[in-house]
C-alpha cells in the first residue's frame, strides 16, 4: 500500500523530475577552458556552438576546423545536440536560458521559434554592439528582419533559408503520361489551378485503390501556400505585428486553407501527415507523385527514399512563385562569458565563407546573398534529384522573398492548426466543420 502510494506520487511529479534532470544535465555544456577574466586577449578562449537537426545538420564541421586552425586564441567547440528541435532542443534551450547557465556561447534557433525568442529579448546579446549591424546588405530583407527582437535590436543572423520548389517522381509522371523534364513539368503548373488540373490528369491515370496519389498530404502543400500568401497580406501569418492572433481573419490563411481543402476534396492527396513513418514509407515506395520542397526538404526526401530511388525524384518550379518555409538562425545568449568573441565566430559562420562551407557539407541553401552568388552554391547540382541544378533553382526562388512576421506562439499555433488539416484530410473532421475547428484549435494554442 505504502509502496503503491509512493509510486503514484512519483508519477504525478514525473514532469518536474524530468525538468530537474534536464537542468542538472546542462552543466556538461559549460565551456571547458573558459575563465572569469574574459577580457585578457592573450588567454585562449573557448566558444561553444550548439545546434540541432538530423543528418549533417548545420554542417559546421569543416567551417569550425578551418576557424580553429586560423584562430589559436579563439577555439570553437561545435556540438549538435539532437536531431529534434521542437520537442527536445527548444525546451532545453529555454530552461538553460531561464536558469542563467548551460547555454552555449552561440545557439542555433529554428525559424519556427524565432517569434518566441524575439519576445524574450532579455536572454540575448545585442549583436549590433559588436558591429554586426553592418551585415544588413548581405541578407534578403525577410531573413534580416526576422533576426530583430521585439525591441528592434539585432540578436540573430541567418544560416540557411527555405526557398521553394516542387519535388516530383519522374517514373510516376511517365506512367501517368505526363512530361518528365523539369522545365516542361514546371510549365505544367504556372499557378495552383493548373496544378489542380495536372493532378486530376494524374489521378485519372491512377484510379486503383492502391495506386499512387498526386500529393503527399495537406502539410507540405499548406506550408508552401502560406509562405506565398502571407507576403501578399501584410507579411503576417497567424499573428499580426502587435502579436494578436489573426488566424480567423488573415485572408492568407483562409486562402491557403481553402486551397488545401479543395485538393483534399478532389481526392488528390495520399492523406499522409508529414514526418511520420508512413509518410517516409510512401516516399520510399512511391505512394505519391509530388510534394512541396523547401531547400532543406531535399535532404529529408533523399534520406527517406534511400539510394534505390536515386534519379527517380526531380525538382521543378513551384506553382505560384516565391516563398520561404524554414531556415535557421544563430544567436548569442546574454549569459555567454565571451560575447565579443562569440559574435566574431557568429559573424564568420553566417558570413560568405561559413555559409559556403556549411552548404557544401549539409546542402542547406545559404541565406546570405554573397554566398548564394558564389559559384560553389550557384552551380550546384543535386545528384539524387536527377542532377537538378538546385543552386540555380533555389537561388531564383529566394530572390524576391518578403519578410513574414512570426508571432511569439507561432510554432504552437502552427502545430495545432496543421493537426486539424491532417484530420480533415484523413476524414476524422468533416470538411464542413474543418475551418471552425481550425480557428478553434489555433486560438486555443495561442491562449
Amino acid at each position, binding site marked *: 500500500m505504502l509502496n*503503491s502510494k*509512493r*509510486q*503514484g*506520487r*512519483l*508519477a*504525478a*511529479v*514525473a*514532469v*518536474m*523530475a524530468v*525538468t*530537474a534532470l534536464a537542468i542538472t544535465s546542462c552543466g556538461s555544456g559549460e565551456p571547458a577552458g573558459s575563465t572569469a577574466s574574459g577580457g585578457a586577449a592573450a588567454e585562449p578562449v573557448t566558444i561553444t556552438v550548439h545546434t540541432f537537426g538530423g543528418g549533417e545538420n548545420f554542417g559546421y564541421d569543416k567551417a569550425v576546423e578551418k576557424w580553429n586552425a586560423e584562430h589559436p586564441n579563439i577555439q570553437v567547440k561545435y556540438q549538435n545536440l539532437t536531431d*529534434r528541435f*521542437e*520537442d527536445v532542443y527548444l*525546451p532545453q534551450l*529555454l*530552461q538553460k*536560458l*531561464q536558469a542563467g547557465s548551460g547555454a552555449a556561447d552561440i545557439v542555433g534557433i529554428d525559424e519556427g521559434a524565432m517569434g*518566441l525568442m524575439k*519576445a*524574450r529579448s532579455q*536572454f540575448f546579446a545585442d549583436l549590433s554592439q559588436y558591429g554586426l549591424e553592418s551585415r544588413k546588405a548581405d541578407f534578403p530583407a525577410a531573413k534580416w528582419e526576422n533576426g530583430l527582437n521585439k525591441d528592434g535590436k539585432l540578436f540573430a543572423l541567418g544560416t540557411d533559408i527555405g526557398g521553394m520548389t516542387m519535388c516530383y517522381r519522374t517514373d510516376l509522371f511517365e506512367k501517368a503520361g505526363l512530361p518528365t523534364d523539369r522545365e516542361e513539368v514546371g510549365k505544367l503548373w504556372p499557378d495552383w489551378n493548373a496544378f489542380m488540373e495536372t493532378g486530376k490528369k494524374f489521378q485519372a491515370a491512377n484510379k486503383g485503390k492502391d495506386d499512387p496519389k498526386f500529393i503527399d498530404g495537406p502539410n507540405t502543400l499548406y506550408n508552401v501556400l502560406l509562405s506565398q500568401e502571407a507576403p501578399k497580406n501584410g507579411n503576417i501569418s497567424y499573428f499580426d505585428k502587435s502579436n494578436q492572433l489573426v488566424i480567423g481573419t488573415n485572408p492568407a490563411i483562409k486562402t491557403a486553407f481553402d486551397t488545401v481543402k479543395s485538393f483534399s476534396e478532389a481526392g488528390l492527396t495520399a*492523406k499522409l*501527415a*508529414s*514526418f*511520420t*513513418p*508512413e*509518410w517516409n*514509407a*510512401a516516399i520510399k*515506395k512511391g*505512394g505519391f507523385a509530388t510534394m512541396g520542397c523547401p531547400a532543406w526538404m531535399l535532404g529529408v526526401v533523399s534520406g527517406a527514399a534511400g539510394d534505390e530511388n536515386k534519379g527517380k525524384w526531380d525538382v521543378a518550379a513551384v506553382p505560384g512563385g516565391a516563398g520561404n518555409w524554414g531556415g535557421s538562425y544563430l544567436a548569442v545568449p546574454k549569459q555567454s562569458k565571451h560575447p565579443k568573441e562569440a559574435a566574431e565566430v557568429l559573424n564568420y559562420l553566417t558570413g560568405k565563407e561559413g555559409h559556403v562551407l556549411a552548404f557544401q557539407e549539409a546542402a542547406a541553401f545559404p541565406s546570405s546573398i554573397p554566398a548564394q552568388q558564389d559559384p560553389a552554391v550557384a552551380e550546384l547540382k543535386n545528384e539524387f534529384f536527377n542532377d537538378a541544378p538546385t543552386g540555380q533553382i533555389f537561388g531564383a526562388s529566394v530572390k524576391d522573398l518578403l519578410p513574414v512576421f512570426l508571432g511569439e*506562439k507561432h510554432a*504552437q499555433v502552427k*502545430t*495545432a492548426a496543421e*493537426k*486539424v488539416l*491532417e*484530420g*480533415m484530410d*484523413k*476524414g*476524422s*473532421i468533416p470538411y464542413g466543420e474543418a475551418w471552425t*475547428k481550425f480557428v478553434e484549435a489555433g486560438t*486555443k*494554442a495561442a491562449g
Partner: protein
Amino acid sequence: MSLKVDAPAPARRPGPHPPGPAKPARSGGGLARFDLRATPYFLVSPYFLLFTLFGVFPLGYTLWVSLHDWELGGDKTFLGLDNYIELIADEAFWNSVINTVGIFVMSTIPQLVLALMLANALNKRIRGRLFFRLGILLPLVTSVVAVAVVFTQLYARDYGMANWFLGLFGVDRIEWQNQSWTAWIAISTMIDWRWTGYNAIILLAAMQTIPKDLYEAASLDGASARRQFWQITVPMLRPTLIFVVFISTIGGLTLYAEPVMFEGNPTLAGGATGQYQTVAMFIVKEGFRDFDMGYASAAAWLLFALILIGTLINYSFTRRIGGNK
C-alpha cells in the same frame, strides 16, 4: 552479596541476560545507546533523503508552480487556483482523461484475465515449464519504444500487417489512428503484449505458495479443476491480485510512451482531434510544447488525484474477490 552486585543489570534489561554485554553499555554511556537507536535510521536514510530530494520537493514545487501563470523562460504571475478552474473546464483535458481511462480499461482487463489464465497453465506440470515461464517474461525485456515502433508499423494504413490481414477477409483498410476506439485497440495491444507476462509471473509466484493439500482435499471431495480454480486459487491470490491491479492502475493512468510513439511525429497531440492523447501526454504537451508550466503542473496534480481515485475504486473491487461463496 553477589546477587546485590548483579542486581542493576536485570533491572535495566529484563530477562536472563548474561552480565557480559551489559558492561560496555555502562562504560560507553549515551553514545552507545545513541548508536544502537540511530544506526537503523542512519542506514535507511539514503532512501528517505533521495525520496525527499526527488519525491517530496518536486511534489511541493509542482504545487507552487501550478498556482502561477508560469511560462518556461518567460513571465511568472501568481494566479491562485485559476489554472485548476480553467483545467476543469478544459475539454481537451477531459478528452485526455477519457482516453486514458478507455485505454486503461481496454488493456488492463484482458491483460489480467490472460495473465491469470497463463499463470494457472504454467502452474501445472507441463513439459519445458522453465522455458515457457522465461518465455512469457521476454516481452518485458524489450524496449517500450521498440515495441511501439513495431506495433505502429503493424497498424500502418498502407503497408501495415493488420490491414493486410483484414484485407484477406475483404475488410477495407482501417485508418487505425483516425478513431478513438481503433487507436485504443492498437495501443492496448502494445501494453498487453509487454505486460501480460510480467503479471503472469507475479501471479504464478503467488500460486505456488498455495498449499497443495487444499487442492488434494478438494479433489477428494470431488471438486472439478474449474471449481478448484475459482474457489481456491483466486481467493488465495487476493493480496497479489490487489498488488497487480494497483501497479496496472498506476501504469495505465500514467501511460505515455506507447501513444506518443504511435503518433509517428511526436507532437503529443494524440491524433488530429486528440483521439488517443493521454493525460501524461497532455501534461508534457502543455509544459514542453506550449511552455505553460503552470497549467501543466496543475494537470499533473489532477492526474495525481485521478490515480488516487482510480486506485481506491480498484481496491474496493479487488477486495471483494473471492470474499464470499
